[in-house]
């Protein structure tokens, strides 16, 4: 029997949600019938709006999808202005202030504390510069990801940007693909470093050569969520760039037809891949969903992949100054846990305009890149005060940090994440020294098993948990080691479970010191982990208290906002009206 969400989707879904959304916005929060809240909030996701967690009713997270992370000249300024004007809630964040943008692991942008009543104005501003929230969440084609410097990269064999753009234009707002059984995540990469992260997407196009022609091999069924991590599997198909959209249409139509609409937990295509295997997947695609003969796979470039391969080679996270293929440079800046204040975002827009072309790109490691900087502008750019906070030459612990949204706003998260990872990174920077040959050391903190921070592909993986300390429940983390991508991607081994959150920095310090003491000459951290079994690794992770202080050990989910002075759920001002004033409660 189709799930309740499917029933709601049958009634209203896709583009048509917009007119209802705008009507509700016009009439205010209270105009949404109380017995239709769940249905409408589920539908609003399709237009990039996610109702915030318990205690924050009437406020929304808004996601703006920027394909391949490309923010065109003129767009960043509008994003910063929207954040400053509309993404301000009833309480400040102690690390980030009152308005900020989150750059996400899928090269998108998230704003919080958005009020329903402001949405028409926000849409108007975003759309005036070609930005949209359409399909940023919900059961459809999500933001397309890829190498963040596509089209301008010296390592690129095929310009993947026009392909990503074509997919975006073909499948955004397209009623035939608007209502899929579940989310549909696609990666397109044309470079030989593997930075599109295709292995963890539902559908991946990766560069490959066939009979002297460059195109893409196709992989299907990757994903990290719900303790069911899967790597995308090779379905033995090569496609030239001009047919990529046809194969993508066929694959998403296949998913539409055969994906599980009865059980949302079993709906992603990775589970269909489990059931069918790659040979049947290819056969069904060929027989039912494309009208041309599929080519067999070409010769890929996976043996050259350096991105997140643990080898500390290549441009990896794109932070730093790198030459483009046109002789200009791109300058990747580290944004700790991907969160940037609205004023800083506006400053970044100015700097990108002044020293580069005005184009900025988002990476899948929550960082930003200023594009098209002529060589003669590099020194002045590097002297800009903003780059003191968002450095092109950060500590490995700062550049390697990724964190999801966490209990600050998210219903699913078990623990606080962003502010905690900021504190971890600062403490590790001050107290722990990595070997000099380890510039990249990835620590990903995800608040739950949904894995939005992609913990399974980090050197040190942290996942939200609870434990008891001195009898009292406290926020804790599971610790995994040795995950990464590259030619032979591998997921982290979970070696130490339920570590109280205030003992995690000490555990990482001990782990790094043990690694330095025991490694062979030149051995990478990833190889070091791969060469040892889980028990041995667990012995190298010795959780302990240090002078690190964690202010979020209590159950942050039980608060209306973890950093509010009076954080008690009953003190929440939500729901509020369009002016942010509390509305009377039914109780």
């Amino acid at each position, binding site marked *: 029997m189709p799930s*309740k*969400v499917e029933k709601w989707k049958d009634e209203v879904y896709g583009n048509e949600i917009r007119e209802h959304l705008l009507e509700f916005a016009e009439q205010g929060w209270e105009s949404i019938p*109380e*017995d*239709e*809240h*769940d249905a409408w909030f*589920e539908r609003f996701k399709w237009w990039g709006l996610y109702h915030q*967690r*318990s205690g924050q*009713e009437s406020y929304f997270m808004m996601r703006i999808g920027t394909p391949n992370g490309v923010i065109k000249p003129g767009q960043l300024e509008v994003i910063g202005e929207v954040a400053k004007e509309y993404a301000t809630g009833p309480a400040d964040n102690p690390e980030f202030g009152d308005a900020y943008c989150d750059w996400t692991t899928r090269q998108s942008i998230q704003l919080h504390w958005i009020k329903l009543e402001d949405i028409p104005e926000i849409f108007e501003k975003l759309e005036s510069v070609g930005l949209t929230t359409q399909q940023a969440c919900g059961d459809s084609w999500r933001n397309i990801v890829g190498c963040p410097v596509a089209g301008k990269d010296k390592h690129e064999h095929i310009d993947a940007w026009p392909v990503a753009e074509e997919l975006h234009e073909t499948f955004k707002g397209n009623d035939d693909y608007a209502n899929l059984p579940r989310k549909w995540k696609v990666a397109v990469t044309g470079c030989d470093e593997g930075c599109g992260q295709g292995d963890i997407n539902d559908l991946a196009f990766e560069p490959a050569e066939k009979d002297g022609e460059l195109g893409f091999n196709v992989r299907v069924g990757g994903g990290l*969520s*719900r303790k069911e991590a899967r790597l995308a599997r090779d379905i033995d198909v090569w496609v030239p760039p001009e047919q990529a959209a046809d194969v993508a249409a066929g694959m998403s139509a296949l998913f539409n037809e055969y994906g599980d609409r009865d059980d*949302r*937990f079993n709906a992603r295509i990775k589970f269909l891949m489990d059931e069918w295997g790659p040979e049947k997947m290819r056969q069904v695609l060929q027989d039912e969903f494309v009208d041309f003969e599929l080519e067999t796979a070409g010769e890929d470039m996976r043996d050259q992949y350096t991105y997140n391969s643990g080898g500390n080679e290549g441009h990896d996270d794109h932070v730093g100054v790198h030459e483009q293929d046109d002789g200009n440079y791109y300058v990747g800046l580290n944004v700790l846990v991907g969160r940037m204040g609205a004023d800083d975002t506006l400053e970044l827009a100015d700097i990108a305009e002044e020293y580069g072309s005005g184009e900025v790109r988002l990476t899948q490691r929550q960082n930003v890149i200023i594009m098209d900087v002529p060589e003669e502008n590099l020194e002045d750019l590097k002297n800009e005060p903003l780059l003191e906070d968002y450095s092109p030459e950060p500590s490995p612990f700062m550049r390697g940090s990724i964190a999801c949204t966490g*209990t600050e706003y*998210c*219903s*699913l*998260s*078990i*623990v606080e994440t962003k502010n905690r990872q900021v504190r971890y990174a600062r403490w590790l920077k001050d107290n722990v020294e990595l070997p000099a040959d380890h510039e990249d050391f990835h620590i990903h903190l995800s608040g*739950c*098993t*949904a894995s939005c921070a992609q913990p399974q592909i980090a050197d040190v993986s942290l996942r939200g*948990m*609870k*434990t*008891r300390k001195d009898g009292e*429940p406290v926020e*804790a983390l599971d610790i995994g080691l040795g995950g990464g991508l590259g030619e032979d991607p591998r997921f982290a081994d979970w070696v130490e*479970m*339920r570590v109280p959150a205030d003992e995690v920095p000490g555990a990482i310090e001990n782990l790094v010191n043990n690694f330095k003491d025991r490694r062979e000459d030149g051995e990478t951290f990833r190889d070091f982990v791969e060469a040892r079994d889980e028990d041995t690794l667990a012995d190298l992770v010795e959780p302990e208290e240090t002078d690190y202080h964690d202010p979020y050990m209590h*159950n942050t*989910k039980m608060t209306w906002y973890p950093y509010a002075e009076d954080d008690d759920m009953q003190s929440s001002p939500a729901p509020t009206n369009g002016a942010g004033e509390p509305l009377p409660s039914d109780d």
Partner: protein
Amino acid sequence: MTTDVHQLDDGAWISVNDSREVNVSDLWLLARSDFCECETTDFLAEGFVKVGVDHPNIEARIAGQCIACGESGVTDWLIVGRVVDPDAGDFYGVVHESVHFPEKRTRLARPGE
């Protein structure tokens, strides 16, 4: 009025009559359960897998793990609250910190049947 119950947002919470009532991330004490070997299971709720109504009880099967021994899995049916008067629709949640007894929904185990 019938009682409308479902889990939403990847099992993050249970909605009862379009109101968010039970969230993940709380600890539940489970007794007489075969979830793990512990005498009482100190159970962290990570996701609501199934929800149902057995009037007046609202029940759920919850994915999670025992934070004492680390065993993970899905519980049998647990009462998470009650809607005593379906016409009024008010939900009364149980206190998750107190001791709960997950039940298999098998009539055979009940006395007198």
